[in-house]
Every structure is written in structure tokens, then in C-alpha cells.
């Protein structure tokens, strides 16, 4: 078995255990239990931190896109989302186009 296969198997097993542990731990709790509210806040905060990092300080190919273009795409996407009934798909496409457009403009 290759190293990559072993690493994949171990990680997959651990992820399955994390998910199963969460379901088992919460199984006896009501949706209004403070632990559920706490876990929800942690999950949402993690997602917000992930977005913040991916936009402000990304790694890989996205790091080559100017910060201004990333912020512009994000701002336009969010504005469209909030302005048009929180419809995600148009907001996603408009935000992406906005990012690409500003990046193209900044290259000239």
C-alpha cells in the first residue's frame, strides 16, 4: 500500500469518526439545548473564518489574483444576493464575473 493510500484511509476513517461522534453526542439533545447553539456557533464561525482567509490571504493560484479583485467579486456577489431575494446562483455568477472583470482591468 502506498503512503498516499494509507494517509487517505486514515484520514477518511478519522473524518467518519468525527461525524459519527457528533451525531452520537447530539442524539439525546433537543434543538434548543445550549450545546447545540454552541456547536452551531462554532461551525458558522469556522465557515466565516474560512471565507475570510480564502479571500484575504489565499494560497495557491487564487493568491495570484489581486486582493482588490477578490474583494470586489465578494462585495458584488453579496450585494446581488441581498438585493435580489437571497438567490444564490445569480449572485455567485455575477460575483465571479465581477472578480474576473476587475482582474482583467487591473492587468492593463
Amino acid at each position, binding site marked *: 500500500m502506498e503512503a498516499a493510500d494509507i494517509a487517505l484511509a486514515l484520514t477518511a476513517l478519522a473524518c467518519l469518526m468525527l461525524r459519527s461522534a457528533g451525531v452520537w453526542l447530539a442524539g439525546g439533545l433537543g434543538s434548543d439545548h445550549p450545546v447545540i447553539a454552541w456547536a452551531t456557533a462554532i461551525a458558522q464561525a469556522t465557515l466565516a*473564518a474560512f471565507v475570510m482567509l480564502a479571500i484575504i490571504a489565499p494560497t495557491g*493560484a487564487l493568491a495570484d489574483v489581486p486582493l482588490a479583485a477578490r474583494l470586489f467579486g465578494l462585495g458584488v*456577489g453579496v450585494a446581488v444576493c441581498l438585493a435580489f431575494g*437571497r438567490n444564490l446562483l445569480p449572485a455567485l455568477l455575477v460575483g465571479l464575473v465581477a472578480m474576473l472583470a476587475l482582474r482583467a482591468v487591473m492587468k492593463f
Partner: protein
Amino acid sequence: MGSVTSSRSAALFGARDAVGAAGVAMAATFLAFGAAVREAGLPPGWALVACWAIYGMPGQLVLVQAASTGFVGGIAPAVMGAIAVNARFLPMAIAITPLFGVHERKRLIPAIPFIAVTPWAAAMRAFPEIAASVRLSWFLGFGLTSWVVAGLAALAGFYVAGMLDDHARAALLFVNPLYYALLLAADVNKPAPRRAILCGAAAAGLTFILPASMGLLAAGIIGGTAAFLWGRKRGSR
């Protein structure tokens, strides 16, 4: 959606929801992942198994990065790093479980592999509009469809890797955080998510002073706990 009471209809609604904005974001991200797998010298089967068995992009990327260097630091640090960046599965599973309205934990076993950011965030948004009795069916429809989209996109990315330049890859990689940002923005009018978003974004700075594999987890725990305590102090959720 509140009028949907049959499991079959709910599953179909879930599948339909999964091919909208979520499907676009998922496809873009996993397309880029497939290309990265090929560049790391790993086979397409590995990409597919990683998508379906891990189903958490940050952890998948940690492994690909380690594989591209031949696991010079060893397997254990790579695995620990991948687990740490995917540790959010635990609070996500805790948060979503009561919302299924299922008393027997065994009935939730089919849903466990699908507990990941995209299905979780979509479910948290959609569940208030879905009758509790069919939420599990909706989630299975959404999760299974997302899984298929992710796997096919990763395979497609593997085979078109040479055709994706840095510009195309950057565009693909931008779609994922933008989609998550939109999901969060859609909830910003609710006090509890708004507090979590603000605190999580503020805590993101911790990732600059902590080891990369632990930074996101720490930001989530500290930001989320601060948001939770803030809410308790205000006497509302």
C-alpha cells in the same frame, strides 16, 4: 417546501437544490482538486475515493500537498493536519442532528458521510422551510447528488488538468469561498448567525500566529464560543 410531506418528494427537492448554486460551487472546487491530484502524481481512483470518503476539501488538499512532496514529513503529520482542518465536522454534526427530528440515532447512519460544509450550510438554510418528518430525505437527496457532482467534477479535473492554466484555476478556486460567503450573507439578518459570522471573521487572524493546520480550528472554536457567550449575554439565540 413546507407543503412537501412525502420522503420521495423531499429527496427530489434536495437533489434539485444540490445542482443549483451549490452544484456550481462544488463542481468548480472539485474540478480544481482533480487537477491538483494529477499534478501530485496520484491516480484518478485516489481522487475519487478522497472526494467520497473524506468529503472535506481542506483535508483533501492537505493530503495532496503532502503527496506532492512525497510525504517528506511522514504520513502522521499529514494525516493529523488533514484531520485538524476537517475537525469542523464534529460541531457541524452536533448542530444538525437535532434538526432532523429523528429519535433513533441508527436512522441517521446514511446521512453521516454527507455531513460536510456544503450540505450542512444548505440544510441549515433550507430546514426551517421543510417539514421535520422529511428533512432527512431532503438531506440524503442533497448529499448524494453533491457527492456525485463532486466525484464527477474531480475526475473531469483530473483529465483536463493540462488545459487549466493558473487563471482558470484561480477562477475555479474563487467560486468556493464566494459560495460560502453568500450562504453566510443570506443568514446575516438573523442575530445568532450574524454574531457567529462577525466573531469568526474577527478570529480568522489567529491563523496567522498559529500553525496552519490548527489555525482554522482555533478560530472557529474561539470565534464561535465568543458568539455563543455574546448571545447568552443578550438573552437570545
